[in-house]
C-alpha cells in the first residue's frame, strides 16, 4: 500500500479527535542543525470546510484495534479499510510536511494493537526519533493509552509537548454500554501519572538555575494534558459533562477538555443515534467550559436541577443572567472584576480594558462598543453614566425576546470562530 493510500485511511481514522491545538507549549527552538519551534500561541496552517483548524498532522499509526467501542470508526467490528504506518514513515511524513510549513507538528494516536504497552512503545519511538535523530523542536501531541505501564507514560512525557487520554464518555455506565474495554478508574489513574510528571518537572525547574535548564531542558508534557468527551452519544446531560470537566480541571489539572459532538461515522453500530451532530450543543459546552475556567463560574451555576442541559438559544452566560436578574444591572464604572466578568456579552479582554480605562476616565455607553462589548446582549444588564436600561432592564418581562438573537443560524456562524479563540 502506498504512503498516500495509508495517509488517506489513517487521517480519516484520526479526524474524530477534536483537538488539533498546537498551543500552550513553552518557547522552544531548534538547534542550528535541527528544525522547528514552538512559541506558546499555536498556529492553524489551514482550515477545512468544517471550519476546523488544521494545525498538526493528525494521524493514527494504525487503525487496527483490538477494542470494540461502538462510537469509534476503528473498532474491531467495523468494516473500515485498515492500514499501518511504520514509525519511520510517520517521521518522514512529519518532517516533509513541516519543512513546507504545512503543519506545526504531529498529533499521533493509534488503535491498540497486540497490547497497550506495545502500542505505546511504537508511539514513543516516533516522538523519540523526531526529537533525537532529527533535532525536531516542533509540536508533538501523543495520545496516551491509559492501560500502558506508568513507565511508558512517563517516557512519553519526555518527548511530547502534550499528552492526552480521552475520557470519551463521562460515566462508567456510558462506557460499559459503548466502550466495554474502557474503565474510568484506569483512565483517571493514568491521568494522575501524567499530572504528577508535569508537577515534578515544574518543581525541578524551579530548583535548577536557568543556565542548566538551557543546557538540558527538564520537560514533561510542557503544554499540559488534555482529554475529549463525546457529546450526544448517550443520554448524559450537560450538567454531568460539566461536573466531570470541573473535576478534571481541578483534580487532574487538565489544560483542556475537548467536546466532540458525536458525528455519524461510516459503518456505524446500530446502538448509536443516526443523526447529524449537534454542533450548537457542542458549542454551548465549550462556552460553559470557558466560563468555568476564565470567568469564575462554578459548574453547578450553569445548569439547574430542573433543566440539566444548557439552553441552545442563548449562550450559557446569558442564560445564567436571565435566571439571576436580581444581580443586575451592573454599573460598569464601579463593579468589581468578578462582577464585570458575569455581564453577558462581555469578554475577558473587554474586562481587562475596562478596568484599565476606568482608572483615567468614566466609561460611557459608546466607550463600551469600542471596548468590544457585544451590546445587544449586554445592554439590558449594564449602567453607565449616560445610560440606564430602563424598560429594557433585567426587570422587563420582555427581556427574553429582546436578547433573543435574530436567527439561530447567525448566532452560530458569528460565534463559530469563538469556539476556537474562546472569546465569549
Amino acid at each position, binding site marked *: 500500500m502506498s504512503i498516500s493510500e495509508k495517509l488517506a485511511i489513517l487521517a480519516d481514522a484520526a479526524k474524530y479527535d477534536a483537538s488539533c491545538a498546537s498551543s500552550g507549549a513553552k518557547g522552544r*527552538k531548534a538547534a542550528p542543525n535541527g528544525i522547528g519551534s514552538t512559541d506558546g500561541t499555536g*498556529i*492553524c496552517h489551514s482550515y477545512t470546510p*468544517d471550519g476546523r483548524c488544521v494545525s498538526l498532522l493528525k494521524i493514527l499509526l494504525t487503525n487496527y484495534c483490538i477494542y470494540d467501542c461502538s462510537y469509534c470508526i476503528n473498532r474491531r467490528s467495523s468494516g473500515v479499510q485498515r492500514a499501518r504506518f511504520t514509525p519511520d514513515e510517520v517521521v518522514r511524513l512529519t518532517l516533509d510536511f513541516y519543512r*513546507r510549513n504545512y503543519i506545526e507538528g504531529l498529533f499521533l494516536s493509534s488503535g491498540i494493537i497486540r497490547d497497550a504497552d506495545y502500542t505505546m512503545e511504537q508511539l514513543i519511538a516516533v516522538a523519540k526519533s523526531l526529537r533525537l535523530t532529527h533535532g525536531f523542536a516542533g509540536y508533538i501531541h501523543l495520545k496516551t493509552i491509559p492501560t500502558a505501564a506508568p513507565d511508558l507514560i512517563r517516557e512519553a512525557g519526555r518527548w511530547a509537548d502534550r499528552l492526552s487520554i480521552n475520557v470519551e464518555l463521562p460515566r462508567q455506565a456510558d462506557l460499559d454500554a459503548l466502550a466495554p474495554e474502557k474503565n474510568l478508574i484506569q483512565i483517571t489513574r493514568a491521568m494522575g501519572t501524567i499530572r504528577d510528571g508535569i508537577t515534578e518537572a515544574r518543581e525541578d525547574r524551579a530548583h535548577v538555575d536557568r543556565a542548566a535548564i538551557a543546557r538540558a531542558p527538564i520537560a514533561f508534557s510542557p503544554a499540559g494534558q488534555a482529554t475529549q468527551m463525546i457529546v450526544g452519544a448517550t443520554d448524559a446531560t450537560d450538567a454531568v459533562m460539566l461536573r466531570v470537566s470541573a473535576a478534571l480541571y481541578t483534580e487532574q489539572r487538565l489544560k483542556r477538555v475537548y467536546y466532540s459532538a458525536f458525528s455519524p461515522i461510516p459503518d456505524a453500530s*446500530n446502538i448509536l443515534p443516526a443523526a447529524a451532530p449537534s454542533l450548537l450543543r457542542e458549542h454551548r459546552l465549550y462556552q460553559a467550559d470557558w466560563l468555568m475556567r476564565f470567568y469564575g463560574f462554578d459548574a453547578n451555576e450553569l445548569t439547574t436541577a430542573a433543566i440539566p442541559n444548557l439552553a441552545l438559544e442563548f449562550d450559557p452566560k446569558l442564560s445564567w443572567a436571565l435566571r439571576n436578574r436580581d444581580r443586575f444591572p451592573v454599573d460598569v464604572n464601579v463593579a468589581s472584576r468578578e462582577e464585570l466578568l458575569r455581564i453577558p456579552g462581555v469578554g475577558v479582554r473587554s474586562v481587562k480594558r475596562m478596568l484599565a480605562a476606568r482608572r*483615567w476616565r468614566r466609561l460611557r455607553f459608546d466607550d463600551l462598543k*469600542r471596548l468590544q462589548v457585544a451590546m445587544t446582549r449586554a445592554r439590558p444588564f449594564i449602567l453607565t453614566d449616560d445610560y440606564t436600561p430602563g424598560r429594557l432592564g433585567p426587570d422587563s418581562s420582555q427581556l427574553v425576546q429582546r436578547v433573543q438573537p435574530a436567527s439561530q443560524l447567525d448566532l452560530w456562524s458569528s460565534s463559530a470562530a469563538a469556539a476556537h479563540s474562546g472569546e465569549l
Partner: protein
Amino acid sequence: MTAAVGSVSASIDRWRGSARRCLQLGLAPEHLVWNDDGSATQLLGTALPELPAHTDRGGGTRVPRNFILLAASVACHRDPIRWPLLYHLLWRLAHREPHLLEVASDPTVYRLIQLHRAVRRAAHKMKAFVRFRAVRRAESASEEFVAWFEPAHRVVERTAPFFVTRFPSMRWSILTPDGCAMWDGEALRLTAGIERHRAPSDPDSLEDLWRTYYAGTFNPARLNRTAMRAEMPARYWKNLPEATLFAPLARNAPARVTAMIAQTLAPPAPVPDDLDAIEARAPGLTPTVDAGWDPIHDPGWREARRRAGAAGIRAAFPLARPRRTVSIGVAGWTDPTLTADDVFYPPSATTAEARLRFYATRLSMVEVDATYYAMPSEDTARRWVERTPEHFRFDIKAHALMTGHPTSPARLPQWLVDDLPVRLRAARNVYTHHFSREVIDEVWRRFLGALAPLRDAGKLGAVMLQYPRWFTPTRASATLLHEARAHLGTLPASVELRHRDWLAGRMATRTFALLRALKFSYVAVDAPPGMESSMPPTMEVTNPELAIFRFHGRRTATWETRNEIVTERYRYLYEPTQLETWVPAIRRAMDEALCVHLTFNNNHANYATTNAVEMHQLLADGGEESSLVECGVLSQARRDDQQRAAERRSS
C-alpha cells in the same frame, strides 16, 4: 509606488525623525500632512522648518514603551492614515495625557489598536499560510525551499525572524510583492519585492500528499464554510495548494453524510474474534465502507472543464505519422451527465444530431455502447455516417446476446421474445443459451447488417466483443471466439477479456496467439487494480490493423458492486501523470499497428472527454506526431481504408 518599495523599518525611522521634529517645533497634528514614506510637510506643502540648534541633539521626548511597539506594528499597515493617527496619539501623549494608551475606549487609541490587530493578524496568517516548495538547484545538491506569498500588510520584515528560528538548517526564500526574505543557513537577507511571474511556479510533489491529508482530515458531518472563510480569508487561497479542494469537499459533504446516516441502519458487520484474524486479512482487499469520495479523481465537472481548456488543444483530428493514426474518443456521447448544461456541449446542441456533430469537432472517434442494450438499425448507422467527418471512426459494442451477457426481455424486439419459453418472457434477465441457435445466428446477422453504412463509409473502427467476467479461458470459450469470427466474416473486431486467468502465466501467450489467429484486436484496459476482474495493464498487438486501449477509471469502491449506476462506477478523473504511464505502450502499439484507438470509458460528466483531450495532448507533445491535417496523411489513411472496404465488399 516608489515609496511602497522602501522597507518598513526605514519608513518607521523616517516617521520617528519627522515626528520628533514636529513635536519639538510644537506643530499640532491638524497642521501637518504625512506622506506614505513617513515624512511630513506642513499643510499647504511647506517643508518643515529647521529646529533651533540647541534642541536637535537631545531629541529626548519620552513616550511609553508600548507606544514605540504600537508604532512599529502600525507602520506595517497599508492604510496611509497610520502616520497621522500615530502623530495624533503622540501629540496627546506628550500634552497632558501620558496615560492615554491605557484608555482603549478613546477613539484614536481604538483606531490604532484596530490597525495593530490587522497587522498582527496579517503576520500570524503569514506564519500560517506561507507554503514552501522544494526546489533542487542544478549547481548544488542540497534542497532549497521557495515560497511565493502575498501578505495582507507589509509584514515580511517583521515575520522573517520567525522563519529563521523555525527553519535554521534549511535554505529558504519567501518572495512577496513588498519584499523578499532569504536565509542561507547563516544570514537573513531582505531585498525588494518582485512580481508574481518571477517566482518559481513548479509544484512540489508533496502537495498531492498534503491534499490527500487535507481531504482525509475533513469531517463532512460538520460542514461550516462561514467559519472556514472567517479564519482563512479568500485573499490567501490562490497560493494554498489545498485550495483546489475547498469547493468540491464542501459540495460533496451533504451527500456523504446522508449516505453515512442511511448506512447506519444496516445490520452490524460480524465481529472477528481476535487481532490475528484482522491482521491476516490482506490489506487492500478489505472493503472500504465509506466508498467516500476521492477529491483528486472526482473534482467535479467544472475542474475537469478547466483542465480540458488548459490542455488547450482539440483532439478533433487523429494524431498521425505516415501510415499510422491514433484516434481518441469516449464511450458514448449522450450520457445525461455529459449532456448536462455547460459540462461539455454548447447550449445550442440540444438534438442528437447537433450533439454528434459537435462531438466530432472535439474528438475523432466514439465508442457506441447503446448497441449492447438495443439492436442498432441501418437507418441509425446511416445518420451517424452523415453527421461525422470522413476521418471519424465508430467502435460498436456487440449486443449482450452476442457475448453471453444477460439482457432484459423487455428491451428485446418481439421476434426475439417470441423465441423464449413462455415462463422466461417476463423474467428479469435472460441469457444467450435460452434462445435457439437459429435465433442467435439471426441476431448476429441483423446486427452486422445494420452496420453496413458504417462499413461502406470506412467509418467502422471495430465491432467490440466485451466478454463477461465468467468468460474464462476454456475450450468452450475458444469455440465461442471461433464462432464469433465466423459470424463476423472479415469485419474488423476487437475482444475485451475480463477474467485475469486469460493473462496468467503461460496462458497469456496462448490467449494472444488465439486472438492473432482470429484477427481480433486485443483490448488493453486500464482499470482499478487488484480486482478479480481487472486485467493487468498489458498491451499486445494481435491485429496489425488496429490496436485498442480502453480506460475505465480506477474507482475501486464501485468496480465490482452489482447494479451500480454506470456513471457512478466510472466516476474517476485520471491525473495526467497516470495517463503518461501509458504513453510508451501506446507508442509501441503505433509501431506495430496501422491504427490505434484510445477510448475513455470513465464517463461521468466530462471526465472522459477531459482525459481524452489530455491524452491527445500528451501524445502530440511527444514530438514526432503532428496533426493529421498538417502532414497530409488524412487522404492516405482514407484511401487505405476505402481500399480495405472495397476488398471486404467484394469478398
